[in-house]
């Protein structure tokens, strides 16, 4: 009975949904505040993301006539569920809910589900802007997924195991992934920006061309769930990168594990925010060129080098 209770608290409370929800709100606020300060603005108060979320939950939930209500209701839930289950396998500040050999692959698979749900959301609602947004999110899907996956395979090969907890532990003892494979870290960051559809790659939801892309027709609770899934995905993505490249929550002597983990994840968030302030939005063909001509070959080079070192 107690382990059931323990599992439930782990699932629902600590490294589970409540914690992730709070982290998502905090990260979203920090992100918007940093972007505002970099642009000379004041930025929103700390409770702004929460306020937006509550407002959206209270708003009227309408859909265009003729769309399948069930599908449109299921998609945001599917995307959020995928992201939350992915978070179970990621060690956070020393606590780990579940870990088994090969959970990196499971997490990567679960993290690539939301873009598909995002695309289906566009097609299900059928508006002009949504359909085009859906097409673009598919076109864009491969140009950042492939480099992201390959970039994350290299630390696994280096650490010789496919479990994130194992990789993090191994790295915290020996040497951080980012020092050995800086290229891998940069590729993973670029892939994460593409996955989260942040500014240089926010082509599917390009405000000035296709209003809000696939999410144009969603409103009310469904839109709130969509936004929550994107924000939680940011948190999970950052935690994944911290574990895979920055040695996770390994005890580094000076500070207790959770604080080092928090500092590292805030550092990655800062890099993401600065990246989203630095660039204009690329066109879909430019992103595809960038993806296939630059990112994928680099990722391949990265893997061959690691395998070659591994073998030697």
């Amino acid at each position: 009975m107690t382990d059931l209770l323990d599992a439930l608290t782990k699932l629902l409370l600590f490294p589970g949904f409540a914690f992730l929800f709070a982290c998502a709100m905090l990260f979203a606020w920090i992100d918007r505040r940093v972007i505002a300060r970099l642009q000379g603005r004041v930025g929103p108060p700390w409770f702004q993301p929460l306020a937006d979320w509550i407002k959206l939950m209270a708003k009227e939930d309408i859909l265009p006539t003729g769309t399948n209500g069930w599908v449109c209701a299921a998609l945001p839930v599917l995307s959020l569920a995928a992201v939350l289950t992915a978070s179970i396998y990621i060690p956070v500040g020393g606590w780990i809910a579940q870990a088994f050999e090969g959970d990196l692959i499971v997490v990567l698979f679960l993290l690539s589900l939301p873009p598909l749900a995002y695309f289906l959301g566009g097609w299900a609602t059928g508006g002009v802007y949504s359909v085009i947004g859906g097409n673009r999110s598919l076109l864009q899907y491969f140009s950042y997924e492939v480099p992201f996956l390959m970039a994350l395979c290299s630390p696994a090969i280096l650490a010789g195991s496919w479990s994130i907890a194992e990789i993090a532990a191994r790295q915290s003892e020996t040497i951080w992934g980012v020092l050995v494979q800086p290229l891998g870290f940069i590729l993973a960051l670029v892939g994460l920006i593409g996955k989260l559809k942040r500014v240089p790659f926010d082509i599917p939801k390009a405000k000035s061309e296709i209003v809000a892309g696939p999410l144009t027709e969603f409103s009310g609770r469904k839109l709130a769930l969509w936004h929550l899934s994107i924000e939680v995905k940011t948190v999970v993505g950052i935690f994944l990168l911290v574990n895979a490249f920055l040695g996770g929550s390994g005890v580094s002597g000076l500070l207790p594990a959770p604080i080092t983990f928090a500092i590292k994840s805030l550092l990655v968030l800062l890099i993401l925010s600065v990246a989203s302030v630095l660039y204009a939005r690329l066109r879909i063909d430019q992103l595809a060129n960038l993806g296939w001509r630059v990112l994928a070959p680099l990722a391949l080079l990265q893997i061959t080098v690691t395998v070659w070192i591994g073998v030697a």
Partner: protein
Amino acid sequence: MSNRMTIPIGPQHPLLKEPLSFMITVEGERVVDSTLRLGYVHRGIERLCQTKTYVQNLHLFERVCGICSHVHTTTYCQGVEALLGLEVPPRGLHLRTLLCELERVHSHLLWLGVLGENIGFQTIFMYAWRDREIALDIMEELSGGRVTHSCNVIGGVRIDVGDAQFSSIVSQLNDLEQRVEKLLDVIQHERTLRVRTQGIGYLSPEKIRNYCVVGPVARASGVDVDLRRDCKYAAYGWLHVNVALAHEGDVWARTMVRAREAIESLRLCRQLLVGLPEGPTQVRAPRRVPPGEVVSRAEAPRGELLYYIRSDGSDKPARVKIRTPTLTSLITVHDQLEGVETADVSVVLSGIDLCIACADR
């Protein structure tokens, strides 16, 4: 089945600051055809002004366009003063031109922010509009109004520059010039901005001539036309205007032309302020205008602005025709959009600096 789709860049769209309806037919990601419908902001100003007196019309023509309000009243007052045969004192002309140039800086910086916003470059939007605030503060200090200054009167200008204002304006001008120079430097070298604007919306000089396009859009394709230098209206007789030209003819060239023009305007502002002659700023104008016709032209931030005024001797104009420069660039949009990606539609539309309230009158 050719998957042709019609995207409405409808009257209400994040891309458009004012209502205008573009129906763009798209095949895959490529634009095939586009139709334009104006008239959503048509207020019938040309008919309305026939029921108001010359003095009241001043404030009506100021509201034709939200951004370049001063140049409209300048052209209108110039025309009526020509009909009345009034001689505006040099100090009045200098102040009138000073506000014209300040308004050009404010309009170009506003446009730069809108371009940045439309290509997803939030920071350029924030920086351009932060720097533009200084231009607005100067105009507010001069005339009491940030955008609609209502400082032009028939016979001169209603405002004056005291010594305290003089020094504060000059210091603000220097600060603004440094910032605009830095913005120009960023635009020239920022990679993603160049990639998104180069080679898009090309207009050949022949097309510019056929469609009689004016303003920065024409100057970006190498057509050297600028009424400040050719017509020498207001105080431009005392000034030497060097015109910013480019030859690539795409949105990138237009960005550079407008940025360089903003810096040129700041230089002219300082020249005007330093050489401000003494004397009155306005002469008293009678309320009735003798019968006659006049065609008055000026260089608005978007190009040649034309006012045709016919008076029949009463205190109300018989006919006022306003031709705003945005109309000429709107004709060319159909050709610019031919074969362009959907993502570039926003770049093309923001490249021609749409002022739809001007086009609709």
